[in-house]
């Protein structure tokens, strides 16, 4: 679901095909009939934006028919845990959870807690009123009241009305097959097929997996999409077991790596939080705010101090709190769309873009291009001159006259980049595998790797500031920035940096074998604790390339290296039953060897190797020692997987069906239409939203709009629209519509269509296809318009940019925009050009804005 694996991850899909050949059922639930659907055993066409309704229906089916994996649910999940009596579910509050603050537009999560627990693990040591949010909420801060790792109140019978299991049951009881059919535009029979297939293929002997991609993440309630699948997989016992799990099919070579070793505002390597502007008072308080009393996040300080030692070398010490007071602080949201707003306001003066094409790839492309014209300077690093480098003389805004080249003050540096074949380095793929690529040839002329660029940039800045006594320059002057270089261009050694990432003993410089060796006394340095050991024994582990035919098992542990500790399936203790025996011979993976008193199997066990299954932590146990022998989910403070999330999410402990920001329908469940916590740019004129039903101009945008990728192109096209073969294979921007919509709108196959929203209008070649199926939702036929989003103004194949149509309302947990379900209008013919384009969009907006009323009392938007 939420993925077109056959077209977007074709080589990964070979394994799905092989499984199908061996009898596996492959089900594709997706708005479009794609090549994935064609290869599947079953395709179910679903309305974009309705996946939680569908998956919630599966949860309800499992619970009502008592088809869950009882032993797994009881021991490995938080189903038995009793929740605070102040908790109020959406079912009892018309679409809102308890704690909603309408003024702030956010939740106070106190009432979502386990009964008898402090909500914040170490609240007393924090600044008054500081409530960490989302990914900033601290790791397992919820562990405060856990005694020897166990929640205070539980009901193993799962019958207490306030236990998670019963709350779950009530929360989803209205997600009946008929509700799913009505809401998602599917048949009751197709829905039943999916439910039965999942249940029949789960249990001791069998496992089922979910594969998803950004078709799930890119929604204003995207995190909760994935959460709903996680609930199903927990109920069916499909986590931590071979053939199970939830597979995120990510779209960039190292998008996993760039999250683990983040180029993200809110985290440091290994998912350590960036310090917040909230005043912690002291380093100790910061640690207390983040350390979990129980579980592996109990070692927070070891990970933190080792990172600071990697960053600052001998300059960081316990005497100066590892330089904590000098670290930069973040606000709740400093993500890319926040930066965009600041840029539009003129507050951002300089911008470096490296290997990304936001003018094409980000929602609301026009806003990005207009924002660039507010910068003093901009650096763009890429292999070809992408639209993010040429916007100042070649863009829709230049054509419309909204930007005039000679009036743009921005100084621009285009820096040619090196390709993967011109540098050493590692990518982390979508299954957490670090794979090394060796340099094949030298980069030519001015082409340089990012390693070269950032290393020498840092070296030059440090050199210029080395005598500065300004407090602001203290941290950069203390930054450990000493890497050996090689070759004529003085390329830094990628392997030396990998060694720093993998960790070493400060005194001897010896690489560390793994994260268990990290210390909080400054004797170890480690650039990313979850990658600790990736250079163990002085060997570049990601560069191990032992062919799969020379390895003993299909797990192939000697090909590259997976974080953490070369584990290929995390939480794999769950592949054995509470006593430590395999759930079945067929699904044997990691298990307890009673004679040797050790965990073993074909993968690295994800558990203390010698902790027996019957281990019960003493009352004073801390950190990993406080996790019982039959609790596999060791990163969680209670060692269990969470059906219900008491802390860490912004928009509720349980997933709930909400309509997208823009949708042709009201919410069938509640008067609360969309996710109340979603992030909107309501007061900004750069991100107007199409009206919803009942608002003026609603009829202008009657169709659902969704975007996606093609096999022959990659994301914003910078790496593929420059290739002759690929430009020839997919030569033009197009829109996909059903024959019914084509007839209704007068569209001809191969002709032109103009697709429009409140943001912009684009033109595309029309592809009329039965693969786009009109859906009947609550008695009304809805059409979906599909747009691939690879095109931009330039390169070998040029076309309008689908992202120009899209608004940037965001998921509140991860600040990801909703590209997969918006609304649009469509008409035959090419779009207006130049100034007429701006006028056309303005006229649309005028029709929607003239008398937009306050939301009615009976419906909350």
């Amino acid at each position, binding site marked *: 679901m939420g993925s077109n694996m056959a077209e977007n991850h074709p080589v990964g899909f070979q394994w799905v095909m092989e499984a199908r050949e061996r009898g596996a059922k492959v089900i594709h639930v997706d708005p479009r009939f794609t090549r994935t659907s064609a290869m599947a055993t079953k395709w179910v066409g679903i309305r974009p934006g309705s996946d939680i309704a569908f998956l919630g229906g599966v949860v309800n089916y499992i619970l009502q028919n008592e088809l869950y994996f009882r032993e797994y649910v009881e021991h490995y999940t938080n189903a038995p845990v009793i929740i605070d009596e102040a908790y109020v579910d959406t079912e009892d509050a018309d679409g809102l959870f308890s704690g909603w603050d309408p003024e702030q537009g956010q939740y106070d999560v106190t009432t979502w807690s386990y009964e008898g627990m402090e909500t914040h693990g170490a609240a007393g040591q924090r600044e008054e009123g500081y409530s960490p949010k989302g990914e900033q909420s601290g790791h397992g801060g919820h562990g405060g009241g856990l005694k020897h790792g166990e929640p205070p109140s539980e009901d193993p019978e799962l019958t207490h009305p306030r236990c998670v299991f019963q709350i779950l049951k009530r929360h989803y009881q209205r997600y009946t097959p008929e509700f799913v059919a009505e809401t998602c535009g599917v048949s009751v029979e197709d829905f039943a097929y999916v439910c039965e297939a999942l249940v029949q293929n789960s249990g001791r002997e069998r496992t089922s997996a979910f594969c998803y991609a950004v078709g799930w993440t890119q929604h204003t309630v995207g995190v909760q999409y994935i959460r709903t699948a996680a609930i199903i997989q927990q109920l069916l016992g499909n986590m931590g077991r071979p053939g199970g799990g939830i597979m995120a099919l990510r779209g960039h*070579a190292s998008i996993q790596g760039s999250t683990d070793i983040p180029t993200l505002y809110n985290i440091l390597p290994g998912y350590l939080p960036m310090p917040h502007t909230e005043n912690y008072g002291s380093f100790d308080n910061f640690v207390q705010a983040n350390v979990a009393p129980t579980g592996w996040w109990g070692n927070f300080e070891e990970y933190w101090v080792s990172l600071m030692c990697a960053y600052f070398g001998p300059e960081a010490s316990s005497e100066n709190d590892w330089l904590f007071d000098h670290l930069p602080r973040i606000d709740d949201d400093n993500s890319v769309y926040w930066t965009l707003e600041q840029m539009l306001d003129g507050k951002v003066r300089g911008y470096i873009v490296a290997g990304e094409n936001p003018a094409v790839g980000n929602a609301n492309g026009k806003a990005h291009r207009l924002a660039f014209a507010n910068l*003093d300077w901009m650096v763009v690093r890429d292999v070809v001159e992408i639209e993010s480098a040429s916007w100042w003389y070649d863009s829709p805004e230049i054509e419309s006259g909204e930007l005039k080249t000679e009036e743009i003050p921005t100084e621009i540096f285009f820096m040619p980049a090196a390709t993967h074949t011109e540098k050493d380095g590692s990518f982390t793929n979508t299954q957490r595998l670090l794979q090394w690529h060796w340099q094949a040839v030298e980069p030519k002329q001015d082409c340089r790797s990012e390693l070269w660029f950032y290393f020498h940039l840092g070296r030059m800045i440090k050199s210029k500031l080395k005598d500065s006594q300004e407090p602001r320059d203290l941290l950069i002057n203390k930054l450990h920035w000493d890497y050996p270089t090689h070759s004529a261009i003085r390329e830094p050694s990628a392997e030396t940096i990998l060694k720093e990432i993998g960790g070493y003993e400060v005194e001897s410089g010896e690489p560390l074998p793994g994260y268990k060796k990290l210390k909080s006394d400054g004797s170890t340095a480690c650039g990313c604790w979850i990658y600790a050991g990736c250079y163990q024994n002085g060997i570049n582990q990601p560069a191990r390339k032992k062919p799969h035919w020379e390895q003993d098992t299909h797990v192939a542990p000697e090909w590259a290296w997976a974080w953490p500790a070369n584990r290929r399936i995390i939480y794999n203790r769950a592949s054995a039953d509470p006593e430590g025996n395999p759930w079945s011979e067929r699904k044997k993976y990691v298990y307890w060897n009673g004679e040797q008193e050790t965990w073993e199997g074909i993968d690295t066990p994800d558990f203390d190797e010698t902790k027996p299954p019957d281990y019960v932590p003493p009352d004073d146990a801390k950190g990993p020692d406080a996790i019982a022998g039959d609790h596999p989910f060791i990163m969680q403070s209670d060692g269990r997987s969470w059906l219900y999330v008491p802390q860490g999410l912004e928009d509720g402990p349980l997933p709930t069906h909400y309509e997208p920001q823009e949708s042709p329908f009201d919410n069938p469940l509640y008067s609360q239409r969309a996710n109340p916590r979603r992030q909107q740019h309501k007061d900004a004129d750069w991100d107007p939203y199409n009206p919803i039903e009942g608002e003026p101009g609603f009829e202008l945008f009657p169709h659902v709009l969704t975007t996606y990728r093609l096999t022959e192109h990659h994301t914003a096209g910078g790496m593929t629209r420059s290739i002759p073969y690929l430009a020839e294979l997919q030569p033009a921007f197009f829109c996909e519509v059903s024959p019914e919509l084509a007839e209704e709108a007068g569209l001809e196959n191969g002709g032109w269509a103009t697709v429009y929203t409140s943001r912009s209008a684009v033109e595309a070649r029309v592809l009329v296809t039965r693969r786009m199926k009109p859906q009947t939702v609550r008695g009304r036929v809805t059409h979906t318009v599909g747009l691939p989003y690879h095109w931009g103004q330039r390169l070998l194949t040029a076309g309008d940019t689908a992202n120009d149509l899209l608004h940037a309302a965001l998921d509140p947990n991860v600040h990801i925009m909703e590209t997969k379900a918006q609304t649009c209008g469509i008409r035959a013919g090419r779009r207006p050009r130049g100034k007429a384009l701006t006028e056309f969009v303005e006229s649309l907006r005028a029709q929607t804005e003239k008398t937009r009323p306050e939301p009615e009392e009976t419906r909350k938007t």
Partner: protein
Amino acid sequence: MTFPESTVAKDRYAMGLADLLEHWPVVRQLRDGDPLGLGPAVQSQRSKTLTPRIDEAEHVVQSICPYCAVGCGQLVYVKDGEITHIEGDPASPVSRGRLCPKGQASRSYAQSPLREYKVKYRRPYGTQWEELSLDDAMEMIAQRIIDTRAANWQDKTDDGKPANRTMAIGNLGGATLDNEENYLIKKLMTGLGIVQVENQARI
């Protein structure tokens, strides 16, 4: 590789009848048990002399496809300092030698006719790109960062909380880059107090 026309003609002229028949594919098809002409019978004089371009490679390095996150193995063949061929690495348990159309075209990604090899500079209010040396560009960028940072530094937030940062500079991109590159970017930006560091994980 071309087979000079004149040589072909001369050879034919010198052939006897048996040789001539040998050159007629139908004879070879019938004689060699390849009646449909799908096997070696169809080989021509020219194709006999062809060799795979990988045979001429001076060395081959193991690489990883730069596109999606499946992480297929690649073999990169090099001759005279140029890539001559990229194909799937059969040793990879992830991909078993297979590549998708993008991965197969990745030699053309490195050798695109649109590839830029020189720094390009656009001065404020300028109407065209200008040339600039790499050294000068690096020097200017370093100075821009220092100046912008100094002019827009926040020791504290408006309500007096610690900030230690500049909100006037951002850095975007990382998902197409190596782990080691991402590591240096975040490390440097943190050292500089630049917190608006983002990548494609949010798109």
